């Protein structure tokens, strides 16, 4: 109530919902204060691993995370990166290989490819989560064997000369990630 004098005679609604001059200044001051914080957040958070970013982290992190404004905007940066996917075998209880496939397949939307890349690229790939997902793709499997496969990009001049072609031909690195029981992952066949 003690602050009411600030608005007296000024916050009265004028024509068409307009506000009085003092109230207008207070509104604009308030909006400008928030605007300054927001501008700092959207300018700094994409490059927050800096001295300034670290100093401002206690203020910016809650704000940027709450509204999910902490995006680095690195589309295809620093480099587009090679194709990569999961290779997997479904295995029966007797150890027989039931099937062999790759994830993601060629026809799925980009969102699925992006999700797989997100999981694969991480140095500690969550093998249990991946196994549970792949077990759901082959219901009769008791176990799943998983490899992470990174492909090489064919050299432009080699393709030009007809000595290389585009596709999943050049395996750069094939890493065995483990054999996981579908029962343990929650998806027994």
């Amino acid at each position: 109530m003690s602050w009411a004098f600030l608005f007296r005679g000024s916050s009265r609604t004028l024509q068409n919902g307009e506000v009085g001059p003092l109230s207008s200044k207070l509104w604009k001051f308030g909006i400008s204060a928030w605007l300054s914080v927001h501008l700092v957040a959207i300018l700094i958070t994409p490059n927050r691993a800096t001295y300034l970013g670290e100093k401002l982290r206690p203020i910016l992190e809650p704000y940027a995370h709450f509204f999910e404004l902490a995006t680095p905007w690195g589309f295809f940066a620093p480099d587009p990166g090679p194709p990569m996917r999961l290779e997997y075998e479904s295995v029966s209880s007797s150890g027989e290989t039931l099937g062999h496939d790759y994830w993601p397949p060629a026809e799925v939307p980009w969102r699925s490819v992006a999700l797989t890349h997100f999981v694969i690229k991480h140095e500690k790939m969550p093998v249990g989560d991946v196994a549970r997902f792949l077990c759901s793709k082959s219901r009769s499997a008791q176990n799943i064997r998983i490899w992470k496969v990174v492909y090489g990009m064919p050299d432009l001049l080699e393709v030009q000369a007809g000595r290389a072609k585009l596709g999943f031909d050049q395996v750069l690195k094939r890493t065995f990630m483990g054999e996981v029981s579908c029962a343990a992952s929650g998806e027994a066949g």
Partner: protein
Amino acid sequence: MNALKSWNQFWFESFAPRNWYWLRFAMCSLMVGTYTARHLYLEEFFSVTRGLPISDPSAFATMSYRWSVMQWLSSEAAISGLHFAFVVGLVLLALGVWARVLSILVFVLHVSFVHANIGAVYGVDLLFIFFLFYFCIGNERSKKNTPGGWLSSVAFRLAQIQLCIVYAYSGLEKLKGVTWWKGESLWNVLANPQLSRFDFTWVSQFPLLLVISVYLTLFWEIYFAALIWNPKMRRVTLLFGVGFHLSIALLMNLFWFGAFMVTTYVLFLKAEEIQWFENKLKSLFGDRVFQTVFVAHRA
């Protein structure tokens, strides 16, 4: 005093309601498309038993202050129902129905789905967050010289500046990469079977074109923020962007991203250009349909 006057003019007196309406219409329409497509694969992205949700997202990113209404949903049917409601909300928001309330609801749901599986998002989802946030603040029905009108003007300017920040960071981040410096990155994109829509073997016959395109992209992204405010360069900058993003949309598996980036250019169109566009729509659909569908819910 001049600085205060300029601040006031730039932030509080610059709202373009018709640009705002069309940006929201175009963006929400694209969101309807991309999230209807996601609905078909919902299980993969959000099902705890059959999908690829990550059980410990904190191993991938800091999850503090990141929330999701989906933490209260336990059944697949509830997730599907919420996602369907989200898409319906987007349809209504595209048309401008209950825009003030729906902007907030749609923003809350969008962020919730992003936080529910942080691996299942890519560039376009993140861009949507920012613009939905600004739609919560600005509305084309707000009157001038009112708090709502000032906030709308601020939202409009922030959306413009956001686009500049996105391009500037995107260009500068690319400079860290060897393949961008060497002019090879476009080849690496087109030759990547997970990214490209077609077989681009024939492009290897035009290496110079690929290299020039890479350097043009870098130049344009880094300097977009400077070029777009220059009246003489505005059209060229936007036209290059349209060509660039439509190429991404058509040639790569990133249709929604490319299409969305083009729609954001509405923010930089002049009133007469919006008028020209509206006249074209009127002649295409007829005045009655135009008034009923596009104008009924806006001021």
